[in-house]
């Protein structure tokens, strides 16, 4: 598949330590992809490789078929919104937005007109003569967006665009950014460590860890079909259990947890798993609490966290494994002896991975 923006086997080391490890990713024109990962996962380095601030040790960056791997940032025509905005404090809003246009040689009325249009785009029409220091955090963020978009770049890069806003503002700004970028229709790469942000903004989300791309897909795919335990654990809530796979069952596989046998469905698209030790990843809503009895894993409730009308119960199995189970808020009280069983009629919520895979 050839996309508009292609990252092709990018590798970057700093002083011998690998930061980005053979990362390949392809974006369609106008697509928005969120790079999601914990700190140190290489997402920021990837963004800097795209912007041209760093040069990869190997691999290529292609835009519309053109190799820009070694093109200086100045000539790359990628717009970028920095984490702390990096607005020029000594220039006013209009001068900030005009800065990139002037690099393109835009002058006179044309300059004013295009600057005004960019500000209009972010809902800041008429703000040209304001000082940067007079703006609120949210307004600064929009000026940064307008400044990046004004020269009509080929690709837009966003570095943690919401991390400097307070939580109440964050959600609203998220909608605004998504709406704006889709209206402009620009190919966008976004870096974030916030799942919510990645899920709302990204058409697809690329999960990174240790410089490697673990999985890329739609938010739904990542949740319902994690490619590995890391993605499963990183996205949404889950518990892990060591189990042994006994063999195939009519609608899935049979596994043994301690002395208890469960028959579970395997999510679609997962390769069949061989009998033997395995790692099971379970969403809280895929489990249910029952009285202790046959077919249920015996456990003790150790804690409860209220989430709306239901609650997440922490339970410790008699084998010592910790599990999180979603149930009605007053199903049981902490301290109670319970049994735990899979709740799902339809597949999903429980994933099996070969033991040792992380």
């Amino acid at each position, binding site marked *: 598949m050839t996309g508009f923006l292609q990252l092709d086997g990018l590798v970057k080391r700093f002083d011998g330590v690998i930061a980005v490890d053979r990362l390949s990713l392809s974006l369609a024109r106008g697509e928005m992809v969120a790079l999601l990962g914990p700190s140190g996962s290489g997402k920021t380095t990837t963004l800097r490789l795209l912007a041209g601030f760093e040069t990869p040790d190997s691999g290529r960056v292609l835009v519309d078929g053109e190799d820009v791997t070694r093109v200086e940032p100045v000539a790359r025509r990628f717009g970028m919104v920095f*984490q702390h905005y990096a607005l*020029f*404090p000594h220039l006013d809003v209009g001068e900030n937005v005009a800065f990139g246009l002037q690099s393109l040689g835009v002058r006179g009325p044309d300059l004013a007109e295009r600057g005004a249009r960019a500000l209009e785009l972010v809902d800041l029409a008429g703000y040209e003569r304001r000082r940067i220091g007079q703006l609120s955090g949210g307004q600064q963020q929009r000026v940064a967006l307008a400044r*990046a978009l004004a020269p009509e770049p080929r690709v837009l890069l966003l570095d943690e665009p919401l991390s400097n806003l307070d939580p109440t503002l964050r959600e609203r700004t998220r909608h605004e950014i998504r709406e704006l970028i889709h209206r402009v229709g620009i190919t966008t790469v976004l870096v974030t460590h916030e799942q919510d942000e990645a899920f709302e903004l990204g058409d697809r989300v690329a999960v990174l860890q240790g410089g490697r791309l673990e999985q890329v897909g739609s938010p739904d795919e990542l949740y319902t079909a994690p490619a590995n335990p890391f993605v499963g654990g990183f996205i949404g809530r889950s518990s892990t259990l060591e189990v042994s796979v006994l063999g195939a069952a009519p609608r899935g596989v049979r596994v043994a947890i301690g002395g208890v046998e469960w028959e579970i469905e395997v999510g679609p698209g997962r390769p069949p798993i061989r009998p033997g030790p395995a790692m099971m990843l379970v969403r809280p809503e895929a489990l249910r609490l029952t009285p202790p009895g046959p077919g249920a894993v015996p456990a003790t409730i150790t804690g409860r966290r209220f989430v709306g009308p239901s609650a997440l119960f922490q339970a410790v199995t008699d084998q010592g494994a910790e599990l999180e189970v979603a149930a009605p808020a007053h199903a049981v009280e902490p301290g109670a002896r319970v049994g735990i069983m899979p709740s799902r009629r339809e597949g999903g919520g429980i994933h099996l991975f070969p033991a040792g895979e992380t």
Partner: protein
Amino acid sequence: MTADRRRQIVGAAILVLLLWLVVYPLLLVLVEGIHGPNGWTLDFVRLFLHRPTEWRALWGSLWISLVSVVLAALIGIPLALLFGRYDLPGGRVLSGLVALPAVLPPLVGVLAFLFLYGESGFVSLLVQRMLGLEEPPWRLQGAGAILLVHAYSMYVYFYLFTRAALSSLDASLLEAAASLGAGRWRTLRQVVLPHLYPALGGAALLTFMTSLASFSAPYIFGGGFRVMTTQIVATRLNGENELAMVETISLAFVALLALWLLRGTRTPDSSAGGRKGSGPTRVPVRRPAVRIALAAVAWGLAAFLLLPHLTLLLVSFVPLGTWTTEPLPPAYTLQNYLALVTDPVRSRPLVNSLWLASAATAAAVGIALLAGLLSVGRRVRGARVVEGLLALPWAVPGTVFAIAIATAFSVRAPWAGRFILVGTIWILPLAYLVRNLPITSRAILAGVRALDPSLDEAAATLGASRWRTLRRVTLPLLRPALLAGASLAFVTAFGDFVTSIMLYTYDTRPISMEILSSLRQSDVGVAAAYGVVLMLVSAAVFALGAERGGGG
């Protein structure tokens, strides 16, 4: 050629330039000290070691500096605590006045003390009359006089450093101490003072180094009492050039040793806020009697501190030869100031100092800016070395550098990087330039460090060339740092005495030399008028800095 390559080349050029200007002259001094007409020899070192006068001068430098530190601390720290912690009547004005000695360049301060406490000074005459004495009540000479001037001019370091450290103290620390039942004294001893230690160390180091390098006070007031700086000048006048080199080495050695012993101290930087919470509020003094007593002491002190400035101003209006034994001058005139402008002989030093200081400052700012842009935040080999070389002239007394530059540039050997500049108009700007490097680079490097690197990157993603980024983003943002560095450097060079006395020629005589010669001709009015000019220029620069500091 890639940008990285270009950066390496410019960096290497700066490194070579600094090695040539800063290190090379010092090395030549070292060589001349152990090299006679008949080759390598330790004769001069032996001569130095066997002369009691040398040891006395070295010991004099050392103990004068140590006592200066103690005196300055004893005045500066309590004052800072008083004004920093307590709300006194007129405290705001007073806390500004207390820093006033800083606007007197060393030679001008000495001049003012001469007019005040010298043989026929105002205060001396007043005391003499009141007590009905035949002779002046004291002689402003020797170690005591030097220490008086040092204490007066150097307590400001302790005062300002302590104030800065106090204002960076988190108020909640004091509240925590109070809530844990610590009384006022215990809080001072166990919370406030430990917080001040690094700043106090920094002030002690600065006072010690300034005192060790002090030349004006020992030169004018020393009489028979010699410290190493005056000893070097005397030895050179005697024609014992090689011995002067050994003396220079010994002084540089003591300075570097002090620097090494007091390493790890820091100078507080008001812009780098280490504090999270709000600053401590001042404690109001409520008891009326205490209030009045404190205010009286404070204003009395302010008067004492202001006396030198007022004296200079007064004397600058005295016509030549009209004032002999009266307690106050009998006649006043503006002639002294007019002469500075109209009389070509009088205006020449003013013009000289102006262009010498401007040229030296511009060059120092250029070098520091280039070094800053190249080295800060970038992985450039030798960046640390360049920063070290820029700071080195601060560690070495001015006398040492004057000797070093005089030595390096009095020989024509182009293949060895030596040219005859002594006696030309180029020697003073060059010497000022070297002396200015630490001041300018300190301010400019701090400014460059404070720049957000993502601004540079933002400009790049917006397609701005390096040159346009420099012109539109970097330089405008660095302007305060450039101004601060330049103005401080300019003031220092404008009033320089210690370097000038060894390197000036008649045609390039700067203001300080003209003050000295006016004084020798008993033309006190003109000397004071020059002094007032120097004082006003310093004051303007400090006011500018204070306004910026307050505004930002």
